[in-house]
């Protein structure tokens, strides 16, 4: 039985997984705190994690109906993420493992997102291509087998969710902006105007979203307030189309280049309706299998960390006592 903890950004999460069966997954969002500042303040996030982590663990354990003695492994996200936030989760998880005399499993956050696909319903087995797109990261990862990963492409500047949120902000939408942009775009014409797709060359699997954001900025400046207001939905739809097209094009070409028939999504941008709809079409057309985890497994959660921990070697006592957290870095070996 695995107890997992995730505190890499601004959601405080704990989950209990028993042999692939998810017994509890608790997420305490801090959105309301950060909305006040219009973004995430790392120090505020760290303070809230410390307040919330113990009640969240207690809720997960009681929801799962397990006794502490049944926990054989404690897993935690050790990076990448906000360092102060990660430290709260790692300090907590190590102390819990020590108290329960359990093993410890350090988990990479991105690997966690991928491992959300190994959870029910409809778990997907490698080999597969995983598009991880969120406010913090955007990568195409080739997963030849469980526990092994190769990054096929990554963003060179902004993350996709960041691009969507910044677009929303330029259009005067609230925080969080990405979801609002999505619903506004649903009523607009995606072909109203064309925004550029970054690094749009055959064979290139990397992303760049800084250009599309700049293009929107200058478009709005040139269009003037009146036109921008009356065609807001159309502009939103066209902007979103450019971001989503980049994600779809490159994911499909990765599948073709690497000769892989299975595609899955991870990260919060998987909730974007345009991405889901068009990627499904593209996959159906090419007879590729697509799996999109349920929304609660796409955004940050600890169930995915527990799922990844099943396929990572556990570190026993006393080896894990000295483990720390790291803000950045590629996949943990």
């Amino acid at each position, binding site marked *: 039985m695995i107890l997992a903890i995730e505190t890499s950004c601004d959601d405080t999460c704990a989950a209990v997984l028993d042999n692939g069966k998810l017994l509890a997954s608790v997420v305490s969002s801090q959105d309301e705190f950060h909305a006040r500042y219009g973004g995430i303040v790392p120090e505020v996030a760290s303070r809230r994690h410390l307040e919330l982590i113990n009640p969240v663990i*207690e809720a997960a354990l009681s929801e799962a109906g397990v006794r502490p003695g049944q926990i054989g492994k404690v897993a935690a996200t050790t990076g990448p993420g906000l360092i102060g936030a990660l430290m709260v989760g790692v300090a907590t998880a*190590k102390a819990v493992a*020590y108290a329960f005399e359990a093993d410890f499993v350090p988990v990479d956050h991105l690997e966690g997102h991928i491992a959300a696909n190994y959870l029910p319903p409809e778990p997907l087995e490698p080999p597969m291509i995983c598009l991880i797109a969120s406010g913090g990261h955007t990568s195409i990862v080739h997963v030849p087998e469980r526990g092994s990963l190769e990054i096929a492409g990554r963003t060179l500047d902004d993350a996709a969710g960041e691009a969507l949120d910044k677009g929303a902000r330029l259009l005067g939408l609230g925080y969080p902006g*990405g979801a609002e942009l999505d619903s506004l775009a649903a009523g607009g014409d995606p072909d109203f105007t064309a925004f550029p797709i970054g690094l749009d060359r055959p064979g290139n699997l990397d992303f760049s979203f800084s250009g599309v954001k700049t293009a929107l900025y200058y478009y709005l400046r040139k269009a003037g307030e009146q036109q921008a207001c009356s065609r807001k939905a159309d502009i939103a739809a066209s902007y979103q189309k450019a971001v989503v097209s980049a994600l779809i094009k490159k994911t499909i070409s990765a599948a073709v280049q690497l000769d892989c028939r299975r595609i899955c999504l991870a*990260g*919060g941008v998987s909730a974007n309706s345009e991405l889901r709809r068009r990627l499904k079409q593209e996959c159906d057309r090419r007879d590729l299998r697509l799996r999109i985890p349920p929304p609660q497994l796409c955004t940050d959660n600890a169930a995915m960390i527990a799922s990844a921990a099943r396929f990572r070697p556990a570190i026993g006592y006393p080896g894990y*006592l000295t483990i720390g957290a790291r803000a950045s870095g590629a996949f943990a070996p």
Partner: protein
Amino acid sequence: MRALAFDTATEDLSIALGNRQELLGEINIKAGRSHLELLLPAINDLLGNAGMTAAGLDLICVGTGPGTFSGLRVGVATARALSQSLETPLQGQSSLAALAEGMADFAFGNMEELLLPVIDARRGQVFAQLYRTDAASVMAASGVFCEAPQDLIRKIAALTDRPVRAAGNGILSYFALFDQKPVQPLPAADRRHKVRAVYYLPAPGLKMKYDSRDLLDVLPAYIREPDADKTVLLRKKGIWL
């Protein structure tokens, strides 16, 4: 009564085991910014040397600062998680009070003298608090200050004309500034500039019961608000992360 006490408010890490009458062990190490990597191994060593496991503890005491935010959070998170998992009572205690107690000379008590523990708050500021002593204990005689050293000295001088003995890493960071009346810093080499967790250890007769709600109140004494302007992430998250 066997308590485990630790403090992570400064670059030094201090851990103690036992009670006021029987000290089973103490570890003081220079941790820098590596509290997360060093705290649990040191706790494990201390318990191991005493032939104990964490399950045998009657109480956990943790320094709640004020001090370095991330260091404090490592200490408090570790303490809360141990308390919750072992169902052991938890107490949060002031790191400034521990410093003051280390400075107090009860045997030759000079009741006239005030004590001023000072902890570096970074960004050109220090945390400090005035304490007075009687024959056996120290008592806070002011609220917690968070000031630039010069401002602190001015405020202390306005408050009292009694001699004020001062110590702590905040004094060491600004030694020349503090060496003026009415403040009398301990010599720079004095070990009483360091917070020691032994001063958190309880009387041998203390009895406490575990209640899961109590640990929620044990949080760092941040004193200073988060600096939102400087630290807002440009990378906005929305629902996407």
